[in-house]
């Protein structure tokens, strides 16, 4: 979900994703490539993201991952689910 959300803003390459997640979460989540690349590969299989080779700002070829329509839907769904769970947990904690 986090990866999908990151990609929802703009297409990004692998390292960019891990960097972005780390930055936004203020260092709470650190995604190392051992988890990120398999996850991306799985999502690619599932058709949630697609990859394109693009030339980066520094004139280097890098693999950019783009969120697909299916990926957007999946993100929406997972997000709703997450919200429900958080709300439920919150209610339990406050009770």
């Amino acid at each position, binding site marked *: 979900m986090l990866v999908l959300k990151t990609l929802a803003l703009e297409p990004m390459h692998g390292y960019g994703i891990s960097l972005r997640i780390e930055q936004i979460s203020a260092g709470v989540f650190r995604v190392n490539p051992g988890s990120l690349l*398999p996850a991306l*590969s799985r999502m690619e299989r599932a058709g949630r993201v697609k990859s394109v080779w693009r030339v980066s700002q520094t004139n280097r070829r890098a693999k950019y991952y783009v969120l697909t329509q299916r990926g957007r839907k999946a993100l929406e769904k997972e997000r709703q689910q997450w919200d429900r769970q958080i709300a439920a947990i919150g209610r339990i904690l406050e009770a």
Partner: protein
Amino acid sequence: MLFRSVSSGIKSLLLPAKRNAEIEADVRSFFESAVEHKIQQGMNVDDAERAARAEIRSTEMVRHKVWDAGWESHVESLWRDARYGFRQILRSPGLSIVAILSLALGIGANTAIFTVIDDLLLKQLPVHDPHMLVSFGDGSGSGIVASSSPGAYDIFPYEFYKRIASRRDQLEGICAFASFPTMVSVRTASGTSGPATQAISHLVSGTFFSVLGSQPLMGRVFNPGDTATEGRNSVAVISHRYWRENLSADPDVIGRSITINGTSFIVIGVMPATFYGVDLNEQSPDMWLPITMQPEVTMRPSLLKPDGLFWIHVMARRKPDVSVAQAQSWATVEFQRFLMQREGSQILALRRQQIGGTFIPLLPGGTGLSHMRSVYQTPLTVLTIMVGVVLLIACANLANLLLAKAASREREYCARLALGSSRGRIARQILTEAFVLALIGGALGLGLAFWATRVLIHFIDKGASRTALSATPDLRVLLFTFATCIVTAALFGIAPAMRGSRTSVAGALNANARTSGGTAVRSNRLLPKALIVAQVTLSLVLLTVAGLLLRTLQNLRAQDIGLNRTNVLLVNTNPKFAGYQPERLNALYDRILSRVSALPGVRSAGLSGGPPVSRGSWGSPIDIDGRPTPPNEDISTLLNRVSTGYFETLGIPLLRGRTIQAADSADAVRSVVVNKTFADRYFPNGDPIGHSFTVADPAAPGVWHIVGVVRDSKHTSPAEKPEPFAFLAVTQLKGDDQYAYWLQIRSVGDPAKITAEVRAALADINPNLPVLKTETVDEQVDDLIDQQRFVSKLAGFFALLALTLAGIGLYGVMTYSVVRRTSELGVRMAVGASKAELLWMVLKESLTLLVIGICLGIPMSLAASRAIKAGLFGVEPADPLTLIAAVVLIGGVLLAGSYIPASRATKIDPMVALRYE
């Protein structure tokens, strides 16, 4: 999505290098981005690279993780296991060859038997929607009979079919066909000249093809109009095979005229190659002819009259909305009503009651009708069980082999466990190896089965050229073989796999293999031993059963059939095919007998209506003059018609009076010779000679005078009880019953040598007089008992197979045990044990197993023998001789199997043994 996953998975399976390069490029790109970013943040190049590398850690690990994310990784590891298993198999080729061969034999035998079962019992007719077909009765009866006793019916008069044919309220369509095929003589050339060939025809109703839902390849099939009028519509539908082989696949065959038994028929259709009619018998018909042409085709008086005899089978197509039970009660009611009306207005109460007891069972007709089915069902069941047991024995061998291997690879497993492999992974690996073995064995077995099935089918159909049985494995057979492989592999792989995965890490790694003993090993050794005991037990059962069946066959063969069977040649002919009318027969018989008797090497010759021993028979109730027939007495008598020289030629001894002589001519007083059972039953206290009787069958009219009594001879089976038998003088019969089809010849030497001369002599008398078959009495007896021959020979073969497998198994286990104990044996020898002591020590182990196996096997064998009691002849199920022979045989083979490793143990050099490992 699924498609993408599958296709990209397959792509990466096929091109793993490309996929690896992709992943590596991903990782590198990640790495480069990281470095770049770190440099931007102010690190120098070296530091940035180091930090990035630390973040990624091992590229290799990332690669593995990405690989594992896809489903293909499972396939890949399975493939790796299979390859590893294959290498393991190659590593010990000797053992593996034995294992694969035993599996191939086991699976091959199972597949072969299943192919035959599939062909004979399961296969559906190649027609439209076969499961909607129902047969009136089981179609096992065939011939022309005049019976109407209570009970289930499967054979009907034509009139009954005519009555119900047009009724559509319960069944969608009804068809009828003769209960027997008819051999006909066919001339395909124009006119009546040209050579005649024999063909098998089947008389069918006009609805036959439409009820089956079969379409012709060319032309048209029969329609109800073709059988609307008797004796008209001489049209024929021919089989694909007949068209190809006898009409050279003539493309203009439709409308061509062929002469069948002297009547001209027009070919109107050719059936496709897959169609073989409704009878799954040794020979499939060459042509189908309208049932209304019966008198012309069978050259017999019409059977189509309202009071006709019972001779047709009936099949129908069900309506989807009418249950079988409903249709069945409808058919039964119709049939009873039909029988009542046939009796006329005055029916005795007894008769009415008898008719009330008749019924027609409607049975699934989709598999067709077959007399072979009933003959071979029981033998095939017995054989199926036997081959199953053989496969079990083979499995036990395989399990032992894999257990031994697993034990010797214990250290490998330990190492792998210690390096982080899961137990499941090891178990899966052993199972995969088992599957590889099973599949190789199965593939070999399939080849073996293909060959074996041909042999089996050849036996069943007796080498007939046109048969509906096929040795080619169809999809069902392939599936069966594959399933057998899987089950087999699971059976023999599970024990070793569990063993392998239970290896304890601590145990074996620090100990060396030699001492990896103790408690674990004792339980490990128990399983192979139990398997050996099971093998001994099962082999003993198979041997006993096979022994009993072989004794039965021997007894049947050696049984005195009441005639001298050596040097007798039987020739099957048919004067009808040469156009002889009954009036000219007696002259023909004279010429044949005088001509053949005069041949050099021939002692005597005689003619008869039927062969001396055969399945079919002619019989009729009789009425002895001056003897009131007690009610309920069975007065039916078997009949045959014979010429002069019949008894002399077959060596049936005359007990009283005289045999049929030349003086018994057409105008003389009718003479008959009876057998001893006949004389004893009807004349227990007096001399039958001089008495006379009448035969109820209208074919043998008049009063027959008994002129002689001969010894009983067997007629339909060597195992039968003698029945009353009367031999009528063939020359004194009339019409259709005057034809004699068999010529018996007693030769001086080997009867095979005079065959050519006899043929020439017959051709000389009339070139059109065909020789349909030449046989010896032994061949005919063999024909009668071919069911027993089939089952006993195969049973013997399978029992020997089982025995061999068990022997190999014990040999393997003992060899393995000796090798494992090499150092122990060396120590024993070093401290002074004699060779004999060592030999005994090793032998004792296998003897114990043998004795346990035999003790378990004897009661099981007795139980199995009792189960096949019905199939035995002249031998008791608990025949001690057979049992002892089986025990001795199995003991001998197994002792031989364990003696070799035992003697190897005594040859161990103590010094070598102690340094072993």
